[in-house]
């Protein structure tokens, strides 16, 4: 029981990171029906920027805030400059652009900062709490807390602000959104900006755990895909829950199913994706095909 509780907490903590990345994917998918394969590398690149800022002597949280701001403008710029020209092209074209972005960011980071692992400072204390025999790492709680706070802020933004509502309207049906006076192309760019912010948060939170290197997000992105697929690519809340579930499942299966361990955990992620696509393609929380026409 004690072991189970401990695994649950560890799983929720990594799950929160998957959930953030999954949410970033969904934010873009919802408004443009494009899966942004570069989401992980954008997050990685942002994390390197944070590392550079901290390395230059900036306090952690200031560097974090500045990184998020830069990530936001980076996301908006990428949409305006690279995605918008191909917006009306086939989905395949856009996918190729995002895969191209993936390679660009990966090589750029490698070129600037090199491919060797770097340590990334953690903003959280490395200590633990003991609650009736269960050991809780403060790092896990911190990661979970920050990720959850960010997602809560986004939920408030989309639910209660005029701008958030306008972004949702644009994602649902673009032409009437324009008739409401919404500048829809800017809403799409804003979606990319927010997704970049959420991704950067995931990168900065995970970097102290996995070390920083240009390939750090590739495995994570697969787990995020599994989470988004499980929860439903059409549903932000679902994607968050899916990410958390994948994190918990990974921790549990890795521990209780001895032949899988940590070596085969990516296989588990792939298995989740395939099983969901076969048995419930819309995910647990997605509605049946409300496609944009």
């Amino acid at each position, binding site marked *: 029981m004690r072991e189970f509780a401990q695994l649950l907490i560890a799983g929720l903590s990594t799950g929160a990171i998957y959930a953030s990345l999954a949410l970033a994917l969904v934010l873009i998918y919802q408004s443009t029906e494009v899966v942004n394969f570069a989401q992980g590398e954008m997050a990685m690149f942002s994390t390197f920027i944070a590392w550079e800022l901290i390395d230059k002597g900036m306090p952690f949280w200031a560097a974090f805030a500045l990184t998020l701001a830069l990530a936001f403008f980076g996301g908006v710029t990428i949409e305006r400059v690279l995605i918008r020209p191909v917006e009306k092209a086939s989905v395949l074209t856009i996918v190729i652009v995002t895969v191209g972005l993936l390679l660009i960011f990966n090589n750029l980071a490698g070129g600037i900062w090199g491919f060797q692992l770097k340590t990334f400072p953690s903003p959280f204390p490395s200590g633990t709490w003991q609650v009736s025999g269960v050991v809780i790492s403060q790092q896990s709680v911190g990661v979970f807390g920050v990720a959850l706070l960010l997602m809560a802020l986004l939920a408030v933004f989309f639910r209660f602000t005029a701008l958030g*509502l306008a972004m*949702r309207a644009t994602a649902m049906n673009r*032409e009437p*959104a*324009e*008739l*409401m*006076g*919404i500048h829809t192309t800017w809403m799409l760019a804003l979606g990319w900006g927010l997704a970049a912010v959420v991704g950067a948060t995931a990168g900065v939170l995970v970097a102290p755990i996995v070390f920083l290197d240009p390939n750090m997000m590739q495995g994570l992105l697969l787990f995020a895909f599994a989470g988004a697929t499980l929860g439903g690519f059409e549903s932000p809340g679902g994607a968050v829950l899916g990410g958390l579930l994948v994190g918990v499942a990974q921790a549990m299966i890795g521990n209780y199913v001895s032949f899988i361990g940590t070596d085969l955990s990516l296989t588990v992620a792939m298995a989740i994706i395939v099983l969901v696509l076969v048995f419930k393609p819309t995910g647990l929380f997605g509605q049946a095909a409300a496609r944009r026409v």
Partner: protein
Amino acid sequence: MLEIRDLVAAYGPVTALRGVNVHVPQGTTVTILGANGAGKSTILRAVSGLLKPTHGLIQLDGERIDRKSAASIVRRGISLVPEGRQLFTALTVEQNLRLGAFTRSDRRGVREDLLRVYDYFPRLRERMKQAAGSLSGGEQQMLAIGRALMAHPRLLLLDEPSTGLAPFLVRDIFKIVSTINRDQGTTVLLVEQNATLSLSIADYGYVIETGRVVIEAPAHELRENEAVRKAYLGY
């Protein structure tokens, strides 16, 4: 108020309008009649900025708007109730109405307009927390009109509001459109296949066929016009 001159518009290779002239004076209700595919909706799409005309000009109070974006045309006081309502079906009634007021910053005015919309359509007040997609066809049309009114337009464009509705609902909706025109001085440009009802609330009417205006006259004259009666009024 609205001046459409020599308007030519096309969907790709298909020409939908071949030189249309329409004049909508301030405070009036003008209707454009015609069969399916005659080009009526195209006129409204061009006025609201969803479609860029290939030729001709559209002026609002003397200012050319035919090259402006849809988002900037709303800000100039033109709201379209589009064909097929085009609601945000996953959002609530209230959220749809709030989106209608997206361009406005005068909170008090928005509140007043919201109350006014609920007065015109009490059903919307009852269902304000419900998803727009769960409403009946008539309620959805009411919501589409209410949403357009939330922008507080000077010119309201209506694209076939009667489509798919039971006759008694159509009568209700037309009555409210004429009330809005009379009480708030909102100018109305109404595109319809239902000629009987639209001529009953309009001051002036145009009949278009295959992208051209074939007859135009005050509404009461059109009602008496034999060709119009045969083709559109059915008696």
